[in-house]
């Protein structure tokens, strides 16, 4: 365990089971807005933060000795979105947050072999192919437009390479249209996010070592990410490489006037959990989006945004739940008067898009901010 047992128990004892973490701030608008996707979907106390903490206590105190179906489900069908903690800390001034506790809980469970097959199979795929989807082909980047000596390195990430390549394409398009020099990694390996989030820390070590080495070798001074999950992992789980780590929207706000032609699209902005709650990046995505679209505000946003439902290994293991969470978010965007739901994360885009197609017959468009920026840039 990375945290001391006493420290964990003490944080768990601090939870008073008030369940305020299950709703967004009620005042001043006096609206009942749920915050915890797993609790709302599954219903039992075990799926809300206070119930999960109690389960962790019982594991640490040796009361739970078997990986029952309910244990695996309640622990892994949590998107580790951190919404509960954002609410809790306002009320109880608790220091150790639920996401940290839940990741520690997963580490503890993984160390006992209490882990979902689908998550170990991701580890196997990564071991074999160095990407989380087990794909054997390479995402192709036009070698002519990259510059091996550029100060900026674009870390693409597995999801943008293999599941939503339109995001990677858009980011590369932006570099080209703005005439910016950039490079990509010769051999980009998975950042290890999914392994860290599902408790498989050991398996991630090799990936960290490789990526650190490659980045150091590249001589880049800035690494740009379109995936907040990768960015968070580099920020929190990687050693300091002495380079600047930036999300695409942070990078874009630094480019000054990009001559974007605004399209008048009514767009709601969905805060990705890793970008907002984990890294505190709320303003830059809004600043960039407001240059290309008319932003329609949703009721749950920023620290109290409703998670899209795909994080924490949920998408791979509990797809129905992931799609339900996404559909809830799409409903909210529609209520806000939006024509499109825009995010800044390939995981969010993928899940929201799938839900938009399956559950909402494509009523709403789903984009990543970089796609809109690329579209609105004079070529």
């Amino acid at each position, binding site marked *: 365990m990375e945290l001391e047992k006493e420290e964990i128990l003490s944080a768990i004892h601090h939870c*008073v089971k008030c369940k305020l973490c299950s709703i967004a701030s009620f005042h001043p608008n006096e609206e009942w807005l749920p915050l915890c996707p797993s609790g709302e979907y599954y219903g039992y106390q075990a799926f809300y933060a206070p119930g999960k903490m109690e389960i962790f206590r019982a594991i640490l105190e040796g009361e739970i000795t078997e990986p029952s179906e309910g244990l695996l489900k309640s622990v892994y069908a949590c998107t580790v979105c951190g919404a509960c903690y954002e609410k809790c800390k306002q009320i109880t001034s608790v220091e150790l947050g639920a996401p940290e506790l839940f990741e520690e809980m997963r580490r503890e469970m993984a160390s006992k072999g209490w882990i979902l097959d689908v998550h170990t199979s991701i580890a196997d795929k990564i071991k074999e192919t160095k990407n989380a989807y087990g794909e054997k082909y390479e995402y192709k980047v036009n070698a002519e437009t990259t510059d091996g000596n550029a100060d900026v390195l674009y870390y693409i990430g597995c999801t943008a390479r293999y599941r939503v390549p339109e995001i990677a394409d858009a980011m590369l398009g932006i570099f080209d249209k703005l005439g910016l020099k950039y490079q990509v990694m010769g051999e980009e390996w998975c950042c290890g996010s999914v392994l860290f989030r599902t408790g498989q820390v050991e398996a991630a070590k090799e990936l960290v070592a490789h990526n650190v080495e490659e980045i150091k070798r590249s001589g880049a001074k800035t690494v740009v990410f379109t995936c907040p999950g990768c960015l968070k992992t580099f920020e929190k789980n990687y050693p300091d490489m002495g380079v600047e780590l930036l999300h695409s929207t942070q990078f874009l706000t630094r480019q000054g006037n990009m001559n974007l032609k605004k399209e008048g699209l009514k767009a709601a902005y969905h805060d990705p959990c890793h970008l907002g709650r984990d890294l505190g990046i709320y303003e830059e995505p809004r600043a960039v989006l407001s240059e290309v679209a008319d932003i329609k505000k949703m009721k749950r946003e920023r620290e109290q945004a409703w998670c899209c439902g795909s994080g924490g290994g949920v998408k791979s293991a509990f797809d129905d739940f992931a799609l339900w969470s996404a559909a809830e978010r799409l409903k909210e965007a529609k209520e806000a008067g939006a024509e499109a739901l825009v995010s800044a994360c390939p995981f969010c885009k993928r899940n929201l898009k799938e839900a938009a197609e399956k559950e909402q017959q494509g009523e709403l468009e789903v984009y990543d901010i970089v796609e809109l920026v690329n579209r609105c840039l004079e070529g």
Partner: protein
Amino acid sequence: MNETFSTLVKELQAIVGERNATDDRAICTSYSRDQHWHFVPAKNPACIVRPGNKEEVRTVLMLANTHKIPVIPYSTGINVRGLTIPVHDGSILLDLSRMNRILEINPDMKTATVEPGVTFGMLQEQTRKYKLRPAFPDAPLTVSVLANYYLRGIYQTSATDGHDHTISYEMILPNGETLKTGSRALSEMPYFRYGVGPDFAGMFCAHPGTCGVVTELTAKLYRLYDNRKEYFIGFDDVGTPTKFIYNLMHDELAASIRLVDNQSWLKGIFGTFDYPYEELPKFVLCVLVEGVDGIFDAKDTLVRAYMKECGGQVLELPAEFASTFEHESLSGAEKSCMVFGIKGRGNYHCIGLYGPLTLAAKYYEMHEKTALEVGIPQDHVHFYIDPIYRFHGQLCYFELDVFYDGSDEEFGDKLRNYNEKQFHRLLELGIYGWFRPYAGIIEPTAERIGYLAEVWKKFLHVLDPNEIMNRGKLF
């Protein structure tokens, strides 16, 4: 889990659907403990059942009754007294949170009819559309309206709401029979508490265990007024403000009146930890006046007049404090849980009781004295008075609070000592009653109430002869 029990779980799943009943150990563990664990130790229910309607409730109860299996109704589980933690092995926890419909809001009658899973937040979201609100406890607005009122959850954030918010309800007994109280028993009109014979609504509620499962409850709603004004007055002791409080109560002038010390509930009332509270006088009286135009002005004038002679210091505080106090009082308490953040890794212990305002200073003195005797430091000792109108005898809710590090086992021992002494001392000094008849206070109290204790037991026996409802929480 033995074979008989897993057969039972299958039967329960057949009633409520497979997804809604489980004996999974981890899921059961998540219901095993609340914040009162220093006093009510963790214990797993044997299974959790989540009925979706009253017919399912009835079938589950009858099944449990046949097999004499303890049943614990659970609406939201936030009672801070260990009331939903099982006492016996093999208990069914009946999680009623799926039953969360607001069945009616009747603006003419000023009533709302709700199922157990409806929380104060859910209800307020709807009632405010009619410029109405429920009576709010100072509990997080995630708690069940029905469970709170049924528990006789009647100290609230607005003194003017009086004491009784329950009008009538429907309860399913272990034998499957349905009991309806008040006018609800006679007709489809659930709007009058006193229907036939005695006030049964009162008799069935406020047991530490329950008599059956309440599936619907009709409660009073109160008006929301646009005119509001808040005052905060500082005092150095508990005795001085009592005359002022008495005047406010007597003339029914203020919607909310709360006397709190400057280190505890005030943080929730103001909604921030970040203020030099220690620079305020030791006790702060928070007063909120509201009303329609002419009446508001008249009340406000009188409050100001009484304030001039109250012997306290009128405090000038940031405007957002007044606004938070307003929200917390009249649209549902959300910040009250900040009391759990007071002592770092906070927990909250309190003895809640009803008594006359005249004894306020004595209760506080006794609180300090007993705490000192058992080794609880002075800076952990806190106090709260919440007056309630329209009762003779200057009815107030008092809270003798201690905030502490919840992970400190030794402190838990001190609190247990504190309770043992204080329950007896309070009974000696004189109280009207305990806030709720929760575990620990029953024993010393039952000794004093003579034949009433016998009648109480017999009464419960008639309704629940197999003693399945929250068995062990009482007698």
